[in-house]
């Protein structure tokens, strides 16, 4: 019986579904519960928390990493992993900052986005057609891209004089920052795409069982490569917003950003192994991490302990995922 060992139920539905319901609910909805608890606790503990200003601030702070994490979710579900986003983030800001004086704001920013698209596509090709493990390929690519950023700037800050350059990062519409609008747009587009398009289905298929996907006629390499291209483009967008906020391009920005993004994805409950996950999960994962940071600030707790706490949350999320998997096999 072997692989049926866990499907002992003679009736239609096999055992793990029933056996694992308690634990699997923990994985399915644990993130909602954790988020809700923290939200309520903070609302009672600090009067400053539940103000529009504070909440919008949180959203604004999370918008750049949010864009990267949300699109990174697509990469992860398709069975890949993008470790170059932090470097693309830095490089794109530099490209925009360096070219804005000659090309003007719209063209410079577009060029920077195209730059991210190209780098993401290269990552996608390396890890599919090139048969290099995605982690290694994007790690190496990230190091090179960061090196390129340093070479372009000579290690100096690239300050932008053109005040229009800062509009994207600092401007508002209906009292809400452009960056937040952009983040919301990326969330909605990604979420809708994943749930309702053939491309979204194929992302799940490719990450869940690549060989089966190939045998039903799905172009596995293409699907995976496109998720990397999207991730690169998003990292560039985030980098431009960040550079625009401070009107500066700099090579040492966004270090470790890719790890924080992956942490948010995993905390939300998207599987690190691919084939399973959702955009709303990543959004909640991002917000959970943000609330922790915000809570430390508002409650005036020594931020020294913040990282210990965040690491603990990540570990818990991954452990729950692993335990649920064990129950189910």
């Amino acid at each position, binding site marked *: 019986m072997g*692989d049926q060992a866990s499907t002992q139920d003679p009736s*239609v539905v*096999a055992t793990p579904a029933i056996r*694992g319901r308690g634990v699997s609910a923990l994985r399915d909805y644990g993130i909602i519960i954790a988020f809700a608890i923290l939200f309520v606790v903070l609302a009672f503990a600090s009067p400053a928390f539940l103000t529009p200003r504070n909440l919008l601030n949180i959203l604004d702070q999370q918008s750049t990493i949010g864009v990267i994490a949300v699109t990174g979710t697509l990469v992860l579900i398709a069975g890949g992993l993008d470790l170059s986003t932090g470097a693309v983030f830095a490089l794109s800001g530099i490209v925009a900052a360096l070219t804005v004086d000659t090309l003007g704001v719209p063209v410079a920013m577009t060029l920077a986005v195209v730059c991210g698209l190209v780098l993401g596509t290269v990552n996608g090709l390396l890890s599919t057609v090139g048969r290099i493990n995605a982690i290694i390929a994007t790690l190496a690519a990230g190091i090179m891209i960061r090196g390129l950023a340093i070479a372009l700037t000579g290690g100096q800050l690239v300050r932008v004089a053109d005040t229009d350059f800062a509009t994207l990062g600092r401007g508002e519409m209906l009292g809400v920052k452009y960056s937040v609008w952009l983040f919301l747009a990326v969330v909605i587009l990604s979420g809708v795409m994943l749930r309702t398009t053939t491309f979204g289905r194929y992302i799940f298929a490719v990450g869940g069982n690549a060989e089966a996907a190939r045998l*039903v006629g*799905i172009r596995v390499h293409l699907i995976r490569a496109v998720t990397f291209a999207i991730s690169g483009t998003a990292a560039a967008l985030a980098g431009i917003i960040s550079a625009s906020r401070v009107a500066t391009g700099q090579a040492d920005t966004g270090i470790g950003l890719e790890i924080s993004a992956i942490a948010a994805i995993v905390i939300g409950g998207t599987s690190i192994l691919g*084939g399973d996950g959702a955009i709303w999960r990543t959004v909640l994962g991002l917000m959970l991490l943000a609330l922790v940071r915000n809570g430390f600030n508002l409650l005036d707790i020594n931020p020294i302990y913040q990282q210990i706490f965040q690491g603990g949350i990540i570990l818990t999320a991954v452990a729950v995922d692993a335990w649920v998997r064990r129950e189910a096999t």
Partner: protein
Amino acid sequence: MQVELVGIGKRFAGVQALSDVSLTIRSGTVHGMVGENGAGKSTLGKIIAGLIEPDAGVLSIDGMERSSFRSPREALINGITMITQEQALELRRTVAENVLLGIEPSRGGFLTRSALRRRFESVIAEGAFEELALSADVLVRSLRISTRQKVEIARALARNARMVIMDEPTAALGAGDVDQLLENVKALRARGITVVYISHDLGEVLEVADEITVLRDGHMIQSIPTKGQRPDTLVSAMLGRPASLAFPEKQPPPPDSPVELEVVGLDRPPMVKQVSLQVRRGEIVGLAGLVGSGRTELVRAIFGADRATSGSTTLGGARIVIKSPRAAIRNGIVMLAESRKEQGLFPTRSVKENVTMAHLAEFARAGLVMSRPEKKAAGAVARDLDVKTPSIRTLVSELSGGNQQRVLFARWLLKTPRVLIVDEPTRGVDVGAKRAIYDLIVNLAAAGMAVLLVSSELEEVLGLSHRVLVVRDGRIVGEFAGDAVEEAPVLAAAFGTGDNLVENTDG
């Protein structure tokens, strides 16, 4: 060693996998254990081997009553070891390292290769098990599955096991290897080692077991000597009703039925060499051959799963080029792949999504999946194929093996194909569900589909096919047609022992 189980019960949150099972496994015998998927035979084996703890009941070993084992280690200390279907071998290590894993001879904590080899050789010699013919320094990764199994047997011997539990040991073996395994089981018995033999294959169990226990829905139905048992008596005990294992009546295509699929000179090194074959509309062509003969590789090359290096394909008289499964599917050639789990299912997705995945584009407008037509089509084909599922939104991984197989049939029949290739269509499927799959294949052919069937169960190939092609070493070496193709000449051709008579008694 004699093991007695008394009142063993095991619940997996809500489902009673075993209830009040009592039986005696006599010392020095081979004890067969049979039952449908989900009957509880693997669970029982795992309880004896300490892999699972029961909720109720006691064990008694050689007359000494005790509570059950809490870990595999505890069972091992008592001389009980289990060889599971998922082999527990370190593929990147040598045979000797695997056999002595966990009991390596060490000198002050250091391992020496020579000591390891000496111990390994003494294990094989002491057990008088030279017939295992294992060489110490070969990497397990490079061994065939059947040889790996021998490594596991040797490992059990190295630990002085007195009882070996084998769970579906022949599930992945070809016919020749099965015979060898059965010989090894008998050799274990001859050395006084008790063997618990869990299997789907009633023929094997009847051949090798001294006593057979039948389980059904977690209950012990009978535990009696093999003598006087036949496949049909076991099946009725397993199902609780008499069952017909026989094949549906053959409905050969009309003699003027046109050729639907023709391949000429197909090459895919190293396993497929210059193969030419035809399948007519309404015809079921069976590919027989030993494991490793290249039959699976052949159909994979036809489907484009592996790209052929040369050869031509015509479909309904028109030349087509198939470079990928995508191209094959577009032309109406589909393939139910050999391994349901690795090549078929998307375990994290619903029944509906699994069914529509190959033809998703047809339910989409501008890339958006239109959920109503998709639901309707998936629901209809799932109903037609009698997929038993609470809902089409249920995760496919929650279905039983037989129903998962039906989901995959549903995927390929969602849009009626011109050529249906099925590779091992009933592997891991219950006795009761097999017949339904046979009926389905026969009916599809009767409706005009061209069917290419691969199976390692020869009786399945013979029972369903209108024409049998024998594959050996990547070539077609024999062809048999007619209502009643005999096993013997097909086997002879498969082994290359007979003169490769091309019989043609068609019509």
